[in-house]
């Protein structure tokens, strides 16, 4: 196989992993009936806290775990204010993003006296994983082997998500909350409870997604997650809100990104226009979706 193709493929996988993780969390909130635009803010929180805690404890595992804890706390705040104080979920999502954005800069300044890019030179990257099993299969090995740990973790998590959503009572009830919450209410179950847990799950996965971004870079860049939250939402819709669809959609975006990086030398499309792609994509998808639903329900 051509070296370029292999390179593109491997880059795609690397790039898609944070998207996949964020989208997984977003899938839970989406299926429970909440439009969660806080994925960006949660990822940012995860990105910052993981690298800072890794630096503080000298241990990447502790760093990631503490990063997860802080992000889930933020997600819990979001959940409580949205569900129990009954606020508009879009606005509280915006608030979360704003909060994360401000908090990370404030803490960065407080801790490192630096509002910009903070480099952590000695942390080392996420560990590469070598899976002997994959070595056996010649073609696959070059493509799938040797990625960093969280890539494989994301695949395992994806399988867990699928199991949670389709093979547990929790998953059924969560989906019921999004499909027809009156049914849950008539059975004495609380849709808010499942939605809250969905928020927490999104905090967990976004923490991991953010951790990848900073730990692989060895630095924290302010607003490193800009736009990625929206791409995660597009991945969810493109993946038709199903776990393995997410894998496919995330890969497409990863590939598109890898390809545009590669092609940026060759072609001359300004970076800004390429950055508009997820927004254009989502907009067109939304318009088409509403044309379709409005045609379907010609009642009055």
């Amino acid at each position, binding site marked *: 196989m051509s070296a370029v193709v292999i390179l593109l493929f491997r880059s795609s996988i690397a790039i898609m992993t944070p998207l996949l993780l964020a989208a997984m969390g977003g899938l839970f909130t989406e299926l429970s009936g909440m439009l969660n635009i806080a994925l960006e803010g949660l990822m940012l929180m995860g990105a910052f806290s993981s690298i800072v805690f890794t630096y503080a404890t000298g241990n990447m595992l502790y760093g990631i775990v503490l990063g997860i804890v802080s992000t889930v706390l933020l997600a819990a705040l979001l959940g409580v204010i949205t569900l129990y104080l009954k606020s508009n*979920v879009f606005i509280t999502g915006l608030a979360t993003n*704003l909060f994360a954005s401000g*908090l990370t800069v*404030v803490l960065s300044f407080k801790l490192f006296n630096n509002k910009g890019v903070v480099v952590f030179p000695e942390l080392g990257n996420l560990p590469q994983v070598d899976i002997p099993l994959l070595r056996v299969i010649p073609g696959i090995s070059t493509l799938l082997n040797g990625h960093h740990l969280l890539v494989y973790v994301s695949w395992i998590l994806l399988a867990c998500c699928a199991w949670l959503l389709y093979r547990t009572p929790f998953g059924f009830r969560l989906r019921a909350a999004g499909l027809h919450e009156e049914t849950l209410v008539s059975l004495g179950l609380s849709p808010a409870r499942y939605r809250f847990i969905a928020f927490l799950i999104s905090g967990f996965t976004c923490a991991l997604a953010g951790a990848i971004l900073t730990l692989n870079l060895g630095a924290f860049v302010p607003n490193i997650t800009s736009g990625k939250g929206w791409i995660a939402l597009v991945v969810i819709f493109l993946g038709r809100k199903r776990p393995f669809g997410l894998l496919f959609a995330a890969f497409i975006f990863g590939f598109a990104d890898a390809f545009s990086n590669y092609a940026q030398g060759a072609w001359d499309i300004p970076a*800004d226009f390429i*950055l508009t792609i997820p927004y254009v994509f989502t*907009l067109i998808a939304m*318009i088409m979706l*509403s044309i379709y639903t409005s045609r379907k329900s010609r009642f009055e």
Partner: protein
Amino acid sequence: MVNRSDKIHTHPYMLRSAIGPLVIFSLALVSIIILSLLLSKTPGRTLHYFFLGPVQSTYYFGNMLNTAIPLIFGGLGISLAMRGGSFNLGGEGQIYAGAFVTTMSALTFSTWGIVGAIFSLILGAVIGGLLSGFSGFLRMKWNTNELITTFLVSNMVILVVNYFVAGPLKNPETNLIATKKIPESFQFSRILEPSNLSSGLYLALIAVVLVQLYLYKTKSGYELRMFGLNAMFARYGGIQAGWYQVWPMVLSGALYGLGGGMVIFGTYFATVKEFSAGMGWNGLAVALIARFQPVAVIPAALFFAYIESGARNAMLHSDVTFEIASIVQALVFFLVTSSVLQQLGTKRVRL
């Protein structure tokens, strides 16, 4: 997806209680205090500059009022949209695009004097109105959720304008990533030296009066409000539903665009890359606090400008960073749509 029933609107049976905004106001104050205590080695000093900085000199005070100008326009725009039952979340893009178009028009028609200035401002308003109206149109035609479409279009527009400002239209003479400066004849005069408070403030106040009059004294404003209160009732009375799904959006986008132009003519005199970051969201927050009442937009805008100015002051004179303001604003956003908080302490009155 967001339910249409998630729309924010003041509950008809509640007397407009001051308790909700008061709670938010107090929580904002408390959070500033806590943040200062946590983050500053000299919290007393920080708080001093935060709360008193904006008012301790004409320079700071005037600058604070100046930052309120785009917030007033944004707040008015959102108030109109919400009164008409629509949601405009594209303020960021609409301000930026309006500012950009105004700048380009001013540069193109630089010899037209005051006519050129007015024309440029109108053009900025038009582009804002078109951007927002597009989402309104989508909602009218296919019931597309305008929260999302305004947001998406806004992000796209920001990227596009960024490209032009940093690329083909960048001013080669400065290091700043910005367009060329507009001619002096177009620049608003300073009204409170040495601060950069411009006469745009007068225009902002006039806008408040105009919008208030429009909403409560004109037939069109009446129809807009009735539609926002009860679309079924408006239809019942013969008001055309389709129009009022678009018109409030157009108005709000136009006001945002106009606000962008005001900032260019009054403060920056050129479109600097991402100069308006946050103004759209702040305009939204201002409208939410003002409960969509045009006159209340003024104190709400001043409140936000005060927080930003306080943060800036604290940053300059003490050891905290400006982004504290973002945290406080986020807190406001978190709480301002809570129907639980809104209903605290309200009573039902019946005859």
